[in-house]
């Protein structure tokens, strides 16, 4: 990865926060650290994070509640929990809600770094997926209204002849539209067109 990964760090204990921040920075991460879960949530909008490390037990709202609120607000950052005691019910809940890992304090740096590697892998994948989707959207926008209409018919699996009859055009015209939209979207097969349409929420024609 060319850029330094950015980690969000929340712990209400100032000593612990400082120590973790120091550890992560020494390992080449950029760290945004917060001693209050409420402040972190307020500032989340302006941050572009790769992973989040949360203390489980905090005043205001605890790590699990913070995780829920982040999800609710549309932030799908991978989360690593730190806890002062092994608490199985909480860990189960956290993992079910999508936490990457659940570590017990005092945490060994190797464990934490390993967990962060995992988290960055997850966020990398999420980013790649998000990028691919954005790119497709741009390509889809390049279609003319007529080509878009033909796409809606093509993904139903109909033949050119049928589409031509439906749209009141010649079979030759449909063939040309079809060739153009395939080129623009970069999808040579019908199967790929169908998957793209699904990802982008394009409805098939009736």
């Amino acid at each position, binding site marked *: 990865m060319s850029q330094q990964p950015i980690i969000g760090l929340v712990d209400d204990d100032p*000593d612990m926060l400082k120590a973790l921040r120091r550890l992560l920075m020494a390992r080449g991460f950029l760290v945004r650290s917060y001693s209050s879960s409420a402040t972190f949530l307020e500032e989340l909008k302006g941050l572009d994070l790769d992973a989040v490390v949360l203390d489980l037990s905090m005043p205001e709202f605890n790590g699990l509640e913070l995780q829920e609120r982040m999800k609710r607000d549309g932030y799908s950052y991978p989360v690593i929990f730190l806890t002062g005691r092994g608490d199985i019910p909480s860990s189960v809940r956290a993992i079910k809600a999508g936490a990457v890992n659940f570590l017990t304090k005092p945490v060994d740096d190797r464990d934490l770094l390993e967990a962060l590697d995992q988290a960055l892998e997850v966020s990398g994948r999420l980013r790649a997926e998000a990028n691919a989707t954005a790119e497709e959207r741009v390509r889809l926008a390049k279609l003319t209204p007529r080509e878009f209409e033909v796409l809606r018919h093509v993904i139903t699996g109909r033949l050119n002849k049928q589409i031509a009859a439906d749209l009141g055009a010649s079979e030759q015209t449909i063939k040309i539209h079809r060739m153009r939209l395939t080129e623009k979207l970069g999808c040579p097969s019908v199967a790929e067109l169908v998957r793209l349409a699904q990802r982008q929420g394009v409805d098939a024609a009736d």
Partner: protein
Amino acid sequence: MWRLALVLLLGGCAFSVDAKDGAAQKVLLIHSFGRDFAPFHLVASHFRSELGKLCPGTVEFVDASLEMARFDGVEKDEPLLTFLTAVFGEKAPDLLVPIGAPAAMFCHRNRDRLFSKVPILAVGLDKRRSVPLVEMPGVVEAMTDIELDGLMENILLVMPETKHVYVTMGTAPLEQFWALELKRAWERYEGRVEMHFLDGLSLAQMKSVVASPPKDAVVFHGIMNRDGAGVTHEAEEALVELVAVAKAPSFGYSEGQLGLGIIGGRLLPLRESAQRAATAAVRLLDGEDPAVIQLEAVPLSAPVYDWRELRRWGIAESTLPAGSTVNHRVPTLWQEHRGWVVGAGVVAGLQTGLIVMLLTARRRARESDAAFSLAAESVGLGVWQRDMVTDEIKASDQWRVLFGLNPSERLTLGRVLERVPVEEREDLQRAIEMGNRQGQRYLVEHQVVLEDGTTRWIASMGRAERGKGSGAMRTRGVSMDITERKRMEAELGQQRNQFAHLARVASLGELTGSLAHELNQPLGAILSNAQTGLHLLNRPVADLAELREILGDIVEADKRAGEVIVRVRSLLQAGEAERAAVNVEACVEEVGRLMRTDLHERGVELRMAFARDLPAVRGDLVQLQQVMINLLMNACEAMVDKEAGERVVLVTAVAEKDEVRVAIEDSGIGLPEDVEQLFRAFYTTKRTGLGIGLGICRTIMQSHGGRLWATRKETGSGAVFHLSLPAVRPLTA
């Protein structure tokens, strides 16, 4: 095949004005199971003694038995009929008394052939068991009315947590009848409790079942005269054996079972029903027309309980229904220390009861020493008898085992005393001699040293008796192992001291979540800092300024961890209470700090409001903090079901007269009807924990010259716990 029992006994009225030509009136008792089977054996003996008391003339009782427990199915009435008619010959008895339904049916089947002119008084029948005999002319019936629902209601009232009911029942036809009735009657409790009918099992199998029951189980002891293996059990033998091993509370149906290990309840009033029957018998013997004698069915008795069993199972007397009687109280040192020795106390009580019962049984059946020894051994008692002329001691094998003596060796007092530690011998010998001289019953407790060097404590009860004719004396008695009881007595004092310590540890245990967190924070910081330091040192050029800062932070975090340890240690110390001036405000704040994490995790907000210039109080800071922790924990528990924003605990402190008053107010579920029960030892509504909290808290407050009480919140739901402590300096002039 028939085993016939015929016993003639003279009743209590020796002198009779009415008896024609001085002849006694004869009453033929026909037993269903034999003279010694429950519950009829008690009905019969009560009836006998009551009639003896009531009747103006002399009554002779003749016993015959169907022996239903041993032989059923084959209704061979013939031999018994032949036998009875032969025995009575021309002179028929004056009254026929069948005891129990099988005997009543026997009379019904053979009414024509068995003294058809003689009136019949049927006793020991229940309303549920319809016997056609009662429809016949010349028959009066003394019935009982066992409300089966009432038996279950009693169980659920006394042990509301009950989930499983084990029902012990025999396999004789009468027992099967009742098993079926119970199954039917208790069907409607399905879902609330699970019924396990053990009829069909042998006694040994039943014992193993009740010895390891699931949680919240009770045992209901029905009639058990013949078990699933076909073995018969007289009187309440089976019950006694079962309760000796049962790890669950026992319930029963009859008065005859009370005192033998059942908790109690509304029971079949054997004595009362026998009394009523006896009054009818007097009238019948007096020649009154049976048709005009009507007896009402006797319902179950008023509730009656065995104190020792209530103690054993921790049942408060306040939970018993109104009008309950509690028997078998043991007003001794056991009562004072019941919390600690409840197990031992009940065992000792039960064993004492058994000794008495067995001695009584022995007196009744003097001729059957063998049977007595057998019964004694089954409950771990050793039986001995000493001939004062030859000095020879005859003892059961069990007794020899107790004293560690060879089964075949010849025993004398001297030989037995060798087993007793030297320093106790003289005292023991003196006690025995004195008992023998005075001819009174004596009880001695002494130690015995076994061959392998182990010692055990023995209690022996003995009584001197005059031998027949010769005037020579002999002594007889029983011995039992009381090592366990002795050990418990010794532990008692020690345990009381440990109790206070235990309370501390318990309150600390509740805090472990907090403490783990408090300790792991600084430890976590130390580890992360140290590992970062190592990582930085591996770089070609180490940043010394950074490293210095890291080391400084490590030192700080380490000090913090040390402070946590100091706090824990002071809470754990088992030393004497220290009295010093305590600042209430600081005390509460410190508790708030200790519990910070717990409060957070439970979503509880702690608010504090203190009056200005609060005087100090005198007390042990740590103990007062324990009380506070306990009260705050309770407040948290009480608010578990509240919405997150509504979980608020308010702690206020004000000065009032010469006291400082602290109030802890929560918005939880509130208080039970009987607020004081909260403060009783071992009361708890929590599923976990020792439940020692509030009782101990109050004791601690009282030892500070203060008080602890609870009130309902004035508005909304919730409880307020109040503490008052004397102020160090008086506020009023």
